[in-house]
């Protein structure tokens, strides 16, 4: 059980890197990359939580988070791309 707690703390450090890139990223794409990292860390946290309490409920949460992360990343990336092309022409 202590090893799971240690893994959660280290994943929290990785999520802090995502928060830093989301806050101070120089371009908009960097912020979306930080958001992607935060979603991935959330999926990892869901896996570790399901492992800790030994129930399958958090695995459903992890599947929902994965689908949401795909939709969010695709729509933001498309929006930034269209905006850049508009400014360019």
């Amino acid at each position, binding site marked *: 059980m202590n090893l799971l707690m240690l893994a959660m703390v280290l994943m929290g*450090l990785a999520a802090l890197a*995502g928060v830093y890139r989301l806050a101070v990223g120089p371009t908009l794409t960097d912020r979306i990359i930080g958001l992607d990292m935060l979603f991935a*860390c959330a999926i*990892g946290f869901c896996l570790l939580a399901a492992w800790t309490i030994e129930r399958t409920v958090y695995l459903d949460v992890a599947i929902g988070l994965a689908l949401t992360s795909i939709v969010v*990343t695709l729509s933001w990336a498309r929006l*930034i*791309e269209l905006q850049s092309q508009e400014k360019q022409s």
Partner: protein
Amino acid sequence: MIAVWLTLALAVIVMLIAALGLLRLPDSLARQHAVTKAVTLALSIMILSLIGFVILQDLGGAWILRLVVLLIILLAFIPLASHALAKSGYQEMIKDEKGKTDATEINDVKR
């Protein structure tokens, strides 16, 4: 059981390497390259480790079903999001540099 814990440690180490690349790399394309691939690898290794734990503890088929579905979703759709991020990063990078000849190349290919 030791193999399960070692695999979990490997997953966490790969995730920390992804975080390091997110912090230290100089460019938005390079950061995207570091993060998406390393995160896919880390989550896949973590799911495999949890599958090993479930098999060792004999927790049942509902775990295996959900974990395999999650693995398929991650492996199918994270490269898609990574490609979209790379395209948007490239467009944003060439936005300020007008007059470069290779700047319009990706637009010609796409249309």
